[in-house]
Every structure is written in structure tokens, then in C-alpha cells.
């Protein structure tokens, strides 16, 4: 048995110290009020213990006191709310320059993929001193990505990408727990996050066996599944051109405008009819059960790297797969006015 009894887990991320500071404040508030009540009770049961010669003094109440002990807790809890919300905003929103790593949870293991194609199971190597954004998805039930030393936690859902980010500060090996109950071996769905100095991390990446980068693996799948048959930048294409698609708004056949993010791309592969791009027919077959979660991540990564369209969409069928940024406010205005935007593409 370990008889060393720490009260805090290790602080190994930039956010950990801030969470601990907030925790200390909350513990102080809790202790103060608990002690206040406990001491008052103790004092009263001694001072006003029942004696034969003394009767209770009847008091109705005091509106002033009621206001005081409503207002003070209200003020304190509002401060707690604001502090908590600000901290939450930091914890939830990764900075733009984060290193992107992908994780897939399944009963009962964690699988991670680095951009260079290195894969690992139940272990996650990360560099210190650089924000790391982990894009997570589950293959089956809900899991939860929890690294106590980093003070981050995120439920990992099936069918939807979620994100967790942290910036490790101290090299070391830290617990990775699944903290959402996920069936028989829930408590065995544990692993470790190994934080390394950037140079060690680079060395580790170099030594890892990789068949190629995620995007090159994605490209291979893209060819293999015949995606290029339809999704190509020429006039005969039956599917939207995907070049420069990632991160841009897309106009759908029902005139809605959505942003082409990871979840949109994933949905379009697995359930192509859910969101049809304006000007196209729902002819794409589903790839549900054909592509693994890892494969989906690789294809998405490939689409991300498919190059950018500088000025014009390369789609020379004049079908605006992607909207240019300056078009978006115009369309939104049209939608607000209730008018249908004029179809800007020919029917194929």
C-alpha cells in the first residue's frame, strides 16, 4: 500500500494550476460556510441547552436577515459561476495552432493516430510546451477521455467528433482513464499519456513505424473506394469538387448553409443523403460499415489537405460546391427576407 497521501493530482498542464486555484477557492468557501453552520449549532446547543428555569424566547423572523443571507450566497455563487465559466471556456476551446491527434475509443481500449501516421494503443505520446488537440470518436458506446494530471475530461461519443485539448508542461507519464461507464471492462479501459520534451517527441515520432502520413493513407482509401469517380474537378463530375472544401460554408439543396467540418464530412460519407449540396443528385452510396473510424479520420485528413481554392471554385461546371466568404452574408440576408435565393447552378 502507498502511504503517501497527496491531496492534489500532479499538475502537468497549463490549465492544471488554474483549476487547482479555483478548487482551493471553492474549498475555502465550502469550509467557511460549513464551519460557520457547525460552530453556530455547537454554540447554540451549549448556550441554549434546556434548563428548567429558562424558556425559549419566541422570535418570528427578520426580513433584513433573510435578505442578507439570500444576497450574500447569491453574490458568491455568481462569482463562482463567472470564474467557472471563464475557466470552462479556456478548457473547451483549443488554440488555433494546436497539434492535431486523433483518438478512437472502443470497448475497451483507446487507439490514437498521429498526423504522421504513427499509431498507438492505450498510450498517447505528446510533446510538452505545445497545445495538443485530440479529436475523439467512439466506435460503440459513450466513453470518456480523462487525464487527471491535465484536468481535462471529455465524453467520447459514437457518431460525432468531439475535442479535448491541453498543453503539457512537465514530461512524465500520466493516467488516462475512461470515466464514462462503458460496460464490462470499463475500469480496464485505462492507459497513459506520456508527455515528452519536443526533441524527444520528434525522436519518438521518427522511430515509430508508419505506413505514411494520415493524409496519404486517406488518399489511398479515397482511390480504393472509387471516390475519385465522382468527386473530381472537371465538368463531367457527378459529385461536388472537394478541393479546398474543408472549413468553408457549403450551400445545401434545401438552401441551408453549413460549414464543411469534420462532422459534416463524416456524415456525408456515412449518410450521404442527409445533406445534399445544391445542384447535385442524391446518388452517392453509403459507406456505413465499409470504412472504419480510423479510415474516416484518414479520409477527412486527406480532404483537409486537398489544397485550397484561391479565388474561383475549380469546379468548372459552375456549380458552387463551396460558397465564397463574401457570398455568405448575402445568402443569410436573402434567407431572412424569406426569399428563395436564385439557384446559381445548372441542373446536371
Amino acid at each position: 500500500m502507498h502511504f503517501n497521501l497527496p491531496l492534489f493530482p500532479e499538475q502537468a498542464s497549463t490549465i492544471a494550476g488554474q483549476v487547482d486555484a479555483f478548487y482551493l477557492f471553492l474549498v475555502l468557501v465550502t469550509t467557511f460556510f460549513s464551519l460557520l453552520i457547525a460552530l453556530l449549532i455547537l454554540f447554540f446547543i451549549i448556550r441554549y441547552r434546556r434548563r428548567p428555569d429558562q424558556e425559549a424566547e419566541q422570535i418570528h423572523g427578520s426580513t433584513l436577515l433573510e435578505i442578507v443571507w439570500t444576497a450574500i450566497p447569491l453574490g458568491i455563487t455568481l462569482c463562482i459561476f463567472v470564474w467557472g465559466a471563464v475557466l470552462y471556456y479556456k478548457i473547451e476551446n483549443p488554440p488555433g495552432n494546436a497539434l492535431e491527434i486523433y483518438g478512437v475509443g472502443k470497448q475497451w481500449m483507446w487507439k490514437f493516430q498521429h498526423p504522421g501516421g504513427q499509431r498507438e494503443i492505450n498510450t498517447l505520446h505528446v510533446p510538452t510546451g505545445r497545445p495538443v488537440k485530440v479529436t475523439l470518436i467512439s466506435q460503440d458506446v459513450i466513453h470518456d477521455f480523462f487525464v487527471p494530471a491535465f484536468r481535462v475530461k471529455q465524453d467520447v461519443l459514437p457518431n460525432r467528433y468531439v475535442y479535448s485539448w491541453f498543453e503539457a508542461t512537465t514530461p512524465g507519464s500520466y493516467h488516462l482513464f475512461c470515466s464514462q461507464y462503458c460496460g464490462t471492462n470499463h475500469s480496464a479501459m485505462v492507459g497513459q499519456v506520456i508527455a515528452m520534451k519536443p526533441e524527444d517527441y520528434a525522436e519518438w515520432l521518427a522511430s515509430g513505424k508508419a505506413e505514411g502520413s494520415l493524409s496519404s493513407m486517406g488518399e489511398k482509401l479515397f482511390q480504393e473506394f472509387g471516390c475519385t469517380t465522382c468527386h473530381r474537378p472537371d465538368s463531367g463530375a457527378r459529385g461536388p469538387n472537394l478541393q479546398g472544401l474543408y472549413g468553408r460554408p457549403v450551400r445545401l439543396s434545401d438552401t441551408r448553409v453549413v460549414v464543411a467540418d469534420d462532422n459534416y464530412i463524416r456524415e456525408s460519407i456515412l449518410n450521404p443523403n442527409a445533406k445534399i449540396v445544391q445542384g447535385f443528385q442524391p446518388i452517392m452510396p453509403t459507406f456505413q460499415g465499409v470504412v472504419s473510424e480510423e479510415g474516416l479520420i484518414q479520409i477527412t485528413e486527406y480532404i483537409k489537405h486537398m489544397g485550397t481554392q484561391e479565388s474561383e471554385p475549380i469546379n468548372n461546371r459552375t456549380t458552387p460546391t463551396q460558397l465564397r466568404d463574401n457570398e455568405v452574408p448575402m445568402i443569410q440576408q436573402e434567407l431572412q427576407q424569406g426569399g428563395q435565393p436564385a439557384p446559381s447552378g445548372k441542373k446536371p
Partner: protein
Amino acid sequence: MSTATTAIKPVMPARHYLNDNYGIRSWLLTKDHKRIAILYLVSITFFFFMGGLFAALIRLELLTPAGDLFTSDTYNKLFSMHGINMVFFFLVPSIPATLGNFVLPMMLGAKDLAFPKINLLSWYIYMFAAFFSLATMVSGGVDTGWTFYTPLSSGFLRTHVALMAVGVIFAGFSSIFTGLNFIVTVHRMRAPGLTWGRLPLFVWSNYATSLIMVLATPVLAITLILLAMERTFHIGVFDPRYGGDPVLFQHMFWFYSHPAVYIMILPGMGVISELVTCFSRKRVFGYSFVAFSSIAIAVFGFLVWAHHMFVAGISQYSAMVFSLLSMAVAIPSAVKIFNWTATMYKGSISLDTPMLYALGFMGLFTIGGLTGVMLAALGMDVHLHDTYFVIAHFHYVMVGGMVSAYLGGLHFWWPKITGRMYPEAVAKLAAIITFIGFNLTFFPQFILGYLGMPRRYHAYPPEFQVLNVLSSAGASVLAVAFILPAIYFLWSLKYGPIAGDNPWQATGLEWQTSSPPPTHNFHEVPVVTTEPYHYGSDQEVTVVH
């Protein structure tokens, strides 16, 4: 026992609800709220000890870091059955269906609840639900956790989830019936002169509870029916493989289960208001604030459910709204604690067993409530969510708070229910052991949680062992504390001293009739002319027999 015992030795009344009729039929077909309360008392005590047994086995397994006593599947079933039994078959019905059933009509000066047959039906539905729960256990149990999260429960577990869901749905119906009965009774059957401003606070809190029971419980039934249909017919509501959304289940589940937390704690708060006033010989401080805080808790309780889901993938802005609203629900709870404390000021305080439990409640509920504020704070909850900190928090509210209030109330009204006193010295000892055992069990879990030990873990890293051993040691102390009352209450049925009508010199209407009361509670309809808790020598008991 109160020091003000009169010189005349109290005697049992010749006729009362217990000896009015004999035989099994007179119990199983009774429409007397007092007898139904006792039927409920026996039933929920059974489930309390069964849930307790599961808890004991959980704590036994967690003595060592390795999962060496049970298989993982068995362990998962143990914590699931512990939660399901304790929440749906003990905590939800505990105070309303037993003490509330027994005392509430008498506090109103009524002969019975408004719908005595529905009251009996509610017990039968409870027993029907209990049968399903037992059938599930006998046939191997469920391992969903008490929260039944999808898609695990709907598509991945092979245990009898649907059977258990049926049990929980029916348990819900029984509480809807109790709630309905209480609402109508409070509205329609108050004695002459018993205005809303003169209602005992126990009635106010049970009224608030009943509102939640009637409004929230149907959502639980809908959710679990959808779950059972998802399991059987793959209708595609919760399971993404069929086009559903697993997070939707959490919204629906917590829309009931968060208000359900207040179904569990509000009646306990009502008990505390009765106990603190009686044993301080004081009017309650700020009556209307305490009364309306119950209603405020019931209303706010409906608006905070997503604070169980801050890391579940909901939008950040909705998380902020729910965090803010969760802060709001802390205020009426704080108001109650402050008012009870102020009630004791300049009182004439005696530390009989019920008061010991009440004081335990005030201390432990304060900690439970404040740690709830910690969990409602967004940035904090990310780290604490689904760890032992949460377990410790809700056990401080549910066991430290609710069970203390339940035991306090049971001791307080025991002489009214049975006509006999329990042994005071042993009972005080049990109350103190409860307090010590409870803190030893659950305080270490706060630290465990902050260190990062996730809940529902069968095996855990060795560095968490010391705290787990402390917690298990506390659990064994707590077990003693809970078995003791079971023994001496039974003992007192035959050997307890005769209590007399009003052993605590309390003012409530229920004390103005004999102990045990006659079948129709009062020989004559009482007339109320004063506020509740009119303690003090200048005021006489104003009820005419």
C-alpha cells in the same frame, strides 16, 4: 425523552388503528393511510437493506486495487443494483410514502388522504414494480448503472434491461399516485382554520415534492419506454447506429432525475423543520421564507438538468445557462439552513435522538450542498465529473441529508405510529455512530475524486488504496449504525415504554390525538386558531377534541 413528562403514567388508548381490525385481509385491503404507511415502511426497509448489502459488497471489493473478489460483470451489477434499489425503491418513496403518508393527513386534521383507494393502489403498484426489480435480480441483475445511459443500455448489454426498466416505470407510477393524493389532500382537506400560512412546513415540503412527482415522473416513464423499444425494435431514438442520438437520452433522463433529487431531499427538509422547532421549543424563524424556498427549489429544480452533462458534448453556451441556473437552486437551500440555525437561537434545546439526526442533517447537507455548487461551476466540473467527488457529494445529500432526516423523523413519530418509545440511550448512540461512520465512509471520497479516481471502477491504481480502505472501514461502521435502529425499533414494539399522546410536547395536530391514533385520526374535527409551532408557555394547545 422529554423532561416534561407528566406524573400520570401514560396509557395506551383502548381502540386505535392497529387493534381496530386483525388479520391479513385487514392489512392488505386497508384504506387507512396509517396502515398503508406501515406497509410502505416494511417494503422500503427491505429495499434499503438490500441496497445496503450491495453497497457493502462494493466496499469489500474496493478494499484492494485489483478486482479480485468479483468479476467485472458482477461488480457492475452490484453498483447498478445498489443505485437502482436505493434511488427508485428507497429514496424516492422513503419519506413521502411512509412518514408523509402517516403524518400528512393528521397534520391537516383530516381523516385520511383524499383518495384512500388510490393510496392503496399506489402501494400495490410499488410492490408490482418491486417484483420486477427482484425478478431482474434473481435472473442475473442488470449492469447499466442506475442511469441507463444509451447506447450501452440499448444496444450493448445482454442483461435484463427491459425487465428492470418496467420495474422502474411502475415505481414511478406509484410515486405519481402518492403525489396526486397529497396535492388534492392539501388543497381540499385542511381542517377549519388551517390556512396555507398555518400549514406545518412538513406539509409545504411534501406539497412541493408532490408537484415534482406529478410533473417530472411521466418523463422518466417515456424515456424508459423509448429505451425498451430501442432495445427491442431498434426504433432509432437513442442509438446512432439506427439514426438516434445518445445524448438525447441523457437530456430526457436528467429532466426527471434531477428534479428527482429534490423529490428525495425536500421531504427530508420538511422533517428537519418539524424537529428543529420542537426540540428548540421555538417558532420557526422566517416561516414564509422556509415554506416558499421549498416551492422555489421545486421550480428551479426543473431548470438545471444539463449540469449532469457539462462534458457530454452539449454546446458551451447551454452549459453556461445551466450552470447559472444551478447556482440559483443553491440559494433557497442556503435560506433553509440559515433559518433552521436561527431557529435554535435563544431556544431551549434538548438533544433527543431526533434532534441529533436533525443536527447531523444540517451539517452534512451543508457540505453536500456546497460541494454541489463546486460541481455546478463549469471549469471545476470538467475535472470532477464522473469521479468519486460526485459520489461523495450526492451521498452527503442523500445519506448524510436524506437518510438522517428519515431516521430523525422515524424516531420522532415512532411513538405516534406505535404508541411506544424506542430506547433513548441506544438510539442516541446509533445517531452518533451514523454521523461518524458516514463521514469516515464518504469524506475520503472527496479527496479520491479530486485525485482523479473515476466512479464505477472495479479495479483502480494502487495509489488510491489508502483512501479506499478508510472508506470501506467507515462503511462497516455505518452498517452497524443502520442495523441498530432496525433491532431496537422491533424491540420497542413489545417492550418499549408507553409513549402517551404527546411525548415531545409538540404542537402539530398529529400530536393532539392519541398514540397510536384512532382509525379516523380524530374523534372530533380539530379547529386551528394559531400559526404552526406556537411553542411557549403563554399559548395553550388550541385544539379542541
